């Protein structure tokens, strides 16, 4: 414990010091200014705007003047008690989980194959081709799906018709729609997702392969015993981190691809919020549902990051 006599001037010194340091860095603060203004306007004001979830928002009166909801959690109750609550939650989580499970192996397999490919030009050709879909928008991919799957003139349906005489409504049938979402996402990210695994593979100590070769190990054995263990930590890490985003089932993709016939299997929280809030102008209810999702997402991301970090420390 320092005596108060000594402490006082010190504090003053410190304050003065900080003031001088801030002044010294003033140009840097000026640089930060436009970015800070952006964050306040478009990130933090909307966070404040979340209070409309607890109000009966009226567009003419604005966020401040609109009356509070009675009871305060009215819109949440409406949502929880509504028939679509279960459906939205189920669709969101199911689509996410399907994407997570079925999406994990193809990029890993792709990376292993690329890693085994010894012909340089062929490897880079395949990489260029398979990375490309990642840069196509969902609108474009929707167009591609129409060309391939539409019931009247899609390529696949012409084949099916030739063989069986009937056609399959891939784009409008609840039976196929989730598979369509998962497959199109895998197609889009097959090559792109492999990049990170390839990078991890390039970090594997090459002497391991040499030693294995001397011992007479086959290539398959080397893949199994060296390559795969070498990227295991990256696989687990990505999986955990993706688990944190389970509430994001892919708004962009689903909104562009879905239609009235498949709402029962495809409508997720985000698409519902968009329709209810921005199209039907039911702002408070939609905002409450959005908040519900944000809060769960926040907890999941924090938890998954923490687990990933803990797990990462164990490995590296």
């Amino acid at each position: 414990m320092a005596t108060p006599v000594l402490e006082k001037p010190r504090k003053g010194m410190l304050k003065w010091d900080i003031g001088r340091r801030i002044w010294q860095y003033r140009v840097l603060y000026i640089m930060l200014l436009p970015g800070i203004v952006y964050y306040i306007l478009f990130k933090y004001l909307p966070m404040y705007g979340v209070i409309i979830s607890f109000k009966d928002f009226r567009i003419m009166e604005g966020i401040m003047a609109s009356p509070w909801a009675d009871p305060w959690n009215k819109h949440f109750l409406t949502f929880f008690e509504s028939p679509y609550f279960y459906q939205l939650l189920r669709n969101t989580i199911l689509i996410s989980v399907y994407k997570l499970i079925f999406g994990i192996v193809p990029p890993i397999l792709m990376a292993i194959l690329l890693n085994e490919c010894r012909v340089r030009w062929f490897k880079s050709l395949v990489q260029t081709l398979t990375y490309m879909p990642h840069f196509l928008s969902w609108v474009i991919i929707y167009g591609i799906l129409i060309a391939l799957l539409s019931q009247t003139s899609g390529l696949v349906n012409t084949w099916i018709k030739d063989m069986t005489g009937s056609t399959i409504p891939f784009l409008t049938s609840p039976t196929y729609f989730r598979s369509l979402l998962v497959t199109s996402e895998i197609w889009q990210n097959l090559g792109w997702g492999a990049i990170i695994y390839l990078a991890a593979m390039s970090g594997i100590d090459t002497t391991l392969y040499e030693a294995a070769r001397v011992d007479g190990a086959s290539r398959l054995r080397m893949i199994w015993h060296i390559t795969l263990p070498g990227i295991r930590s990256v696989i687990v890490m990505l999986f955990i981190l993706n688990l944190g985003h389970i509430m994001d089932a892919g708004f962009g993709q689903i909104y562009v691809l879905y239609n009235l016939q498949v709402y029962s299997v495809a409508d997720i929280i985000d698409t519902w919020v968009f329709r209810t809030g921005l199209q039907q102008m039911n702002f408070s209810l939609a905002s409450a549902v959005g908040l519900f999702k944000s809060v769960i997402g926040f907890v999941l991301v924090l938890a998954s990051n923490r687990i990933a970090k803990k797990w990462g420390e164990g490995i590296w």
Partner: protein
Amino acid sequence: MVRGVEDRVINGIVYTILFLAGLVAVFPLLYVVSVSLTPLSVVHKSGSFPIIPREITFSAYRTIWEYSGMVQAFGVTAMVTIVGTLLNMIITILLAYPLSRKKLPGRSSFLMMILITMLFSGGMVPTYLIVKSLGLLNTYWSLILPGLVGSFNVLIVKSFFEQLPEEIFESAKMDGAGEFRILAQMTVPLSTSVIATIGLFYAVGHWNDFFQAIMYITDRSMFPLQVVVREILMQSQQLENFEATTPAQTLKMAAVVMASLPVIVVYPFLQKYFTKGMLLGSIKG
């Protein structure tokens, strides 16, 4: 001997699957191009769209080009992409540079301010209401300002700046150079690769942007490319009347090809930057 055989078998499998993967990636696009070139006569003759049409026609492209919405939309998207990406870059760099200075008082608070927005957001509806109350609805600014800064990109550029050797900045400061000059004449030229990378990501984001437009723009004359293409795709038969010789499907695919062409043409040349960006991102994440 046995080993040589096994090696050859594995090579065979590897190259076959990789070839198929490449084919799966490009075939749908090539088929879309093929459909966009198929005249109605061929469809009538074979009953469907063949993979390789015997005759081709560019009439679908002409029709789409003359369908005024598309030209207009190209202009809107090109403008938003150029202006938007430029502003994205400027503000991102201006944020990243001070935050890369470890001695900056309050640095960690500013970083925290950015990190929080990566974990929690007000959501679609409040954001819409803010954009609305700022008077940005139905302006091109609504396509640029709400997504002006990608927090992830700031962190990537920031950590790149941090790796630059500090001595050169110290000596530049000794020579009396101001921060803006150091940033413009030393930091940015030393960081071209990372700046090109995030610039490309911003640019592709603008080109492919669909949601900001359907949220904030209701004036049809201001619709960007992706929105117009989606409208064309959603129309079932009306388009056919434009020109009796072109099937509706052909017109749709012509629109798809035109909208994706710029990305597909530019992408192979810039692929290495994109790949680098993916890795930068995953290391941070």
